[in-house]
């Protein structure tokens, strides 16, 4: 039966996260962007919501809910509405955990899942993106060579929380396809680079990683010898990042809409002019459009059906949508949108990043 209503359980999660985003994240997001750090107490409060451990089986210390990408998109939108840097930070353990929950061997689950199920936030992360303009996740420059175990060589970037991560899932070429390897903290042959400086997501600590003859035991290949379903992981990430784009765009829309009602020019609110009002209408339409595409893609992913096309459409649409909406957010506010006293320039900077963010989040 076709329906566009979240379940009661999903609605409860959304309400909780929405409140957290509004009461906690929105109070500090500008400071985080300016200072390049996220206060530990915010991360701790988010941890206490229990989002991350929700879909880890109980036997490994989690809450044992059934994993749902659709539920993930609902909460990721709200978190990203609060702040994108914090959202990626808060959900970063999923980068390490969800692929293991879905595709890991029994030993991998036993060894790694409990690491993030303690009473406090423990970062885990993934290294997918590589520092080149024509980066292609299907044709990775980082390579794992089999010789008993695996030896990894290559360069990664955009690795959230790499410095402190309990473990990192490293994606590398392996016999012509992309595979995933679990690399322990402090493994030899891995150099964590300087913290990266980007146009946006400045609150989030991301790093480059260099792999130089890094040896990984054979049993650390995700899913064992058979490997993992890499296409599905990309789908899960495309869905996650798209929902965050919706959250960021919604933030820009709501803020500039309110401004357009309050700001007077020529004796009336600027929102009384179609030139401004139509930008806001387009934003409202495009945000809903992107969200529905996102939901449908996530729904397909949850059904374990072939969803590459839908996830691609959702992500491509969301990438354009979020840039357009965050741009309009600045444009509606004019000069006031350009100054850092107002948040739309921050969302505008974050908006452009989405085209490159596949791999930075997973739901």
């Amino acid at each position, binding site marked *: 039966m076709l329906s566009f209503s979240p379940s009661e359980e999903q609605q409860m999660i959304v309400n909780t996260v929405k409140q957290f985003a509004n009461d906690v994240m929105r109070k500090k997001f500008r400071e985080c962007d300016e200072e390049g750090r996220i206060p530990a107490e915010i991360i701790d409060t988010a941890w206490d919501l229990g989002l991350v451990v929700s879909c880890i089986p109980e036997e490994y210390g989690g809450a044992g809910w059934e994993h749902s990408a659709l539920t993930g998109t609902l909460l990721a939108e709200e978190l990203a509405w609060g702040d994108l840097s914090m959202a990626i930070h808060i959900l970063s353990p999923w980068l390490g955990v969800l692929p293991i929950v879905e595709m890991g061997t029994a030993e991998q689950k036993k060894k790694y899942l409990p690491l993030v199920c303690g009473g406090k936030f423990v970062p885990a992360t993934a290294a997918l993106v590589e520092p080149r303009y024509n980066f292609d996740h299907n044709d990775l420059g980082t390579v794992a060579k089999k010789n008993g175990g695996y030896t990894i060589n290559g360069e990664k970037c955009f690795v959230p929380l790499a410095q402190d991560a309990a473990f990192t899932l490293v994606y590398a070429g392996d016999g012509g396809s992309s595979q995933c390897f679990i690399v322990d903290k402090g493994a030899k042959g891995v150099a964590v680079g300087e913290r990266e400086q980007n146009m946006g997501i400045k609150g989030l600590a991301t790093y480059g990683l260099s792999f130089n003859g890094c040896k990984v035991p054979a049993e650390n290949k995700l899913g064992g010898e058979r490997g993992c379903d890499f296409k599905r992981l990309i789908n899960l990430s495309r869905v996650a990042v798209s929902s965050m784009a919706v959250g960021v765009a919604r933030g820009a829309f709501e803020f500039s809409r309110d401004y357009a009602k309050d700001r007077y020019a020529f004796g009336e609110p600027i929102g009384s002019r179609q030139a401004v*009002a139509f930008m806001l209408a387009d934003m*409202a339409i495009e945000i809903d459009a992107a969200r529905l595409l996102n939901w449908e893609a996530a*729904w397909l992913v949850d059904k374990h059906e072939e969803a590459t096309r839908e996830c691609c459409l959702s992500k491509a649409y969301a990438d354009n949508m979020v840039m357009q909406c965050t741009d309009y957010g600045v444009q509606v506010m004019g000069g006031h949108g350009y100054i850092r006293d107002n948040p739309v320039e921050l969302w505008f900077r974050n908006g452009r990043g989405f085209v490159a963010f596949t791999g930075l989040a997973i739901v």
Partner: protein
Amino acid sequence: MIDFELTAEEKAKIQEAHDVAEKQFRPVSRFYDEHEHEEPQDIIDFMWNNRAKGFVTGLGVVGAMMVEELCWGDAGLYLASPGPGLGGAAVFAAGTKEQWGKFLARFNEGKPKWGAMAMTEPGCGSDTSAIQATATRDGDYWVLNGEKIFVTMGHRALDLSEGIIVVWASVDKAAGRAGMKSFVVEAGTPGMKVEKKEKKLGIKASDTVTVTFDNCRIPFSNILGKAEVKSKTEGFKGAMATFDVTRPMVAAQALGVTRAALDMLREEIDRQGIVIRYDLPRSKQTALERDIIEMESNWRAAHLLMLRAMWQLGSGQSNALEASMSKAKAGRAATLITQRAVELMGPLGYSRKYLFEKFMRDAKINDIFEGTGQINTLVVARRVLGFTRDQLK
């Protein structure tokens, strides 16, 4: 629970509509495009004889998806199919139970009939408050006077069948919008005359006519809604309730034509052996792949917005905002996608040997009728800003 799955029964109905589109509409699609104003009698008879299947009601999610399928076959022939149409939708949305019986029962008996709606006049289109047609009370009757243009299916409703037309007229010009009311006029009523048949850019199988009213007398009870002129908005509530249904319905029409163009484009691309690589990052995709992905995602997004508006209607939620969103989006998407399909196919797209150019012409009307894209954007803007029509003109 968010769910995009249709039941097996729903899928079967949609498939049935698709079969009609493919086997009945598509083979004669070009013929009726090139023979404007000729009667597609076989199609009319077939659609009338199969009316119980609900192909053209357009109500609900499944109804809308059936309309989408028929318009995939041919948008003009869909409009030409007998049924209550926009006039019927207005009666359904704003009429009483008695009026449903009196005016809608006919669409289920006897010979083929059509319903039409008359709002636009030579001097006003989107600005319906400027309507000049009048309805004057005379005892147990209303007397209608005025001229209506761009009446879709007016010829078949009034000249070729015992159909109905819903006419918008003012009962009190001084009251402005509040004085605007809608009236049902039955075919054959003296004083009503179908005049000019328009020659159009597309949807040529449908007729679009001028209807004049010269002291046309109709029973008092033919008014939809209340006769009194009350609050400022009262008079337009009926029209607005109609739009909640008809806007997503027109969105479905737009999406049907557009998917026809997309499907044909994909067939041609497949024939060339080109594979669209959805799994590649954007930077590695070709211009063609990017275009296809943009067109497909745009179509899919508009389709989901349309389904949401219809689903809301079916589950008793107010959908005025979402209905306008879906119409604005689908009209624009249809325009852009069908034009791009012609562009991508080059000389083949432009040639009348193929249907791409026809899809582009047929699609364009969807960004115009039932509220232009701009009017629907204005409705969305007012609603998201919480502005009245005086605050946002």
